[in-house]
């Protein structure tokens, strides 16, 4: 048993984090909200250049042969900056299955996430259906734009695919990777919301003292931090279970997504309340992260949906399972 990342994994994470701080900071994210595609100017290219986008592709296919544990810290780092790029869809869903050309992006729809983010700039639209994975080039689909509360997250309804699905056993794995990557992003978002709120609470004064010295503010943020502390290990464990093709990996992913979604909702609410009125404007950066958290909390199965999968599992499972 060793429940920690390797030095290499951490070094890679740090490199991705530094890259994203350069290419996807709050100002750059605001630009993405306002531009045509909703995507950042340079983050995708930079991530591609360092090999992150295609990291989970086999080395023979031009990737780095990363497994889910290798990739999960990249996903978390992308969440920390609310990266406005289809990284989970591409890095964790499409690329390891070789469904997209190296360097290009994919869009994904599932029953639990029927609108595909950034589909208009994707090479392929992938549908994770009950009976298998269907993949089409964007040009072969009709995209209908929908508006997300997250202004950078350009959503599209996709015209139905009437093709007979290719038989595939990978659909469960692909869905789990997508849900897991989203859970990791939610952990990153929680961390950022707490960080920006702590900074604000140390600086903002009322009644002659920083508002962060009030016990009510402290306890809001302590609760959020504690929720995150106990969500993150479930995400890392699910990553390892997926890597190991554990028979229970689906349950572990559901635990991770449920916990990460809940933690992000708690962090969002605590952060907004501690910001007070300034957090209620778009002038504070908080809303950039909070709205992404709202969107991702309900994507790839919300917390209640994942808990239901676990409940169903527990009704079948022998007692004592862990």
């Amino acid at each position, binding site marked *: 048993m060793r429940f920690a990342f390797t030095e290499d994994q951490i070094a890679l994470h740090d490199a991705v984090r530094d890259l994203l701080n350069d290419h996807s900071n709050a100002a750059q994210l605001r630009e993405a909200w306002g531009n045509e595609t909703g995507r950042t100017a340079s983050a995708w290219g930079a991530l591609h250049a360092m090999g992150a986008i295609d990291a989970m592709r086999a080395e023979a296919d031009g990737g780095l042969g990363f497994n889910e544990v290798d990739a999960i810290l990249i996903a978390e780092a992308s969440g920390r900056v609310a990266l406005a790029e289809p990284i989970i869809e591409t890095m964790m869903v499409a690329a390891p299955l070789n469904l997209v050309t190296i360097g290009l992006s994919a869009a994904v729809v599932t029953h639990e996430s029927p609108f595909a983010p950034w589909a208009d700039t994707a090479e392929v639209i992938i549908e994770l259906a009950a009976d298998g994975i269907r993949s089409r080039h964007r040009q072969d689909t009709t995209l209908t734009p929908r*508006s*997300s509360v*997250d202004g950078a997250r350009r959503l599209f309804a996709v015209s139905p695919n009437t093709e007979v699905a290719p038989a595939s056993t990978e659909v469960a794995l692909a869905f789990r990777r997508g849900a897991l990557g989203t859970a990791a992003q939610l952990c990153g978002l929680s961390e950022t919301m707490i960080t920006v709120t702590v900074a604000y609470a140390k600086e903002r004064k009322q*009644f002659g003292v920083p508002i962060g010295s009030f016990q009510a503010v402290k306890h809001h943020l302590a609760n959020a931090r504690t929720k995150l502390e106990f969500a993150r290990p479930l995400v890392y464990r699910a990553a390892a279970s997926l890597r190991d093709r554990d028979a229970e990996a689906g349950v572990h992913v559901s635990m991770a997504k449920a916990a990460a979604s809940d933690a992000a909702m708690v962090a969002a609410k605590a952060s*907004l*309340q501690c910001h*007070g*009125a300034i957090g*209620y404007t778009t002038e504070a950066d908080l809303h950039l992260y909070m709205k992404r958290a709202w969107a991702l909390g309900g994507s790839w199965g919300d917390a*209640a949906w994942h808990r239901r999968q676990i409940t169903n599992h527990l009704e079948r499972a022998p007692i004592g399972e862990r």
Partner: protein
Amino acid sequence: MDLAFSPAEEAFRAEARAWLQANVPNPPLPSGDTKDGFALHLEWERQLFDARYAVVSWPEEFGGRNASLWEWLIFEEEYWLAGAPQRVTQNGIFLLAPTIFEFGTAEQQQRILAKMASGEEPWCQGWSEPNAGSDLAGISSTATRDDTNGGWRLNGQKTWTTRGAFCTHLFGLFRTDPEAERHNGMTYLLVDLRQSGITVRGVERLDGDEGFAEVFFDDAFVPDVNVLGEVNKGWGVAMATTGSERGLTLRSPGRFLATATKLIELAKSLPDTATPELKDRVTQAWIDAHAYRWQTFATVTKLVEGGHTGPESSMVKVFWSELDVRLHEIALELLGPHAELIDGEFAHWMKGYQFALSGPIYAGTNEIQRNVIAERVLGLPRK
């Protein structure tokens, strides 16, 4: 204990319901927190005023009907049940007007009230400043005596002024005695925003609407006739208003009953996602909306019989604001991956959620309200 409304009250309800059914805009108006939407809302407010439904509880001379508190509550229930628009005049008619009725001169009442209610002169609230939010007594905007012109010169800044970019007038507190400390030396002033010396900058709210404003004062002028109450006694005058804000008038139970009813409809329309655990939470929220209604009825009975409300109003503010958040949270959970959409048939839930999130923050954060409950209702020590 008599739970029935009188025949006259029921007749008033029927009349209001019929008028609202015939007149409530359909499709609903766009948000009143944008420039164009605000203008459309003012047309609606004018229509209400002309039918004498804008301010039913006011005296007839100012456009009201002298309606009882019960009739006012009935009207509010019908108003929200009919899906009628948010009141963009609300900060004037619900927050400022009670103060003018209590502290204003006859001249002020004549000059201000009817135009406020008709929407001809919409009012915004100038309370908060960049360094005075929860700590309202920390305001630093000044009003300096201008004897030559018989009035006051304003300097400083107000912020988070709801719909400030669209209103013609502002009411607020300004420091008139620079020597006095904290709660003293403030004066309650009524400010015409349509003058040089005032700059209004719209601030984008969470939901993207320009619903807030920063208001900058640079030697703006307020004549003596626009002092409300006594000079340097503004804090006491303002507290009467914040009492109204937290009490009966701002958030009538009808509003949450209407939302709870819509939530039940939503759950029924989504049988696939309305799991038993979500339906249980819908029911809980529906119970809470009714609890708010009956708690209000108890308060109104007390008021009608000559009693007063006190710090209990802080419990009311905590309750409705957190209920409003819960109602919308449950709706968003019902909507699952559709919750994030701000277009289409369900968009109003995400919009409403963002609006609801302001409830625990404004009009005194719920943290401050809980302090008030603990100290002034329960008697726990301040320090």
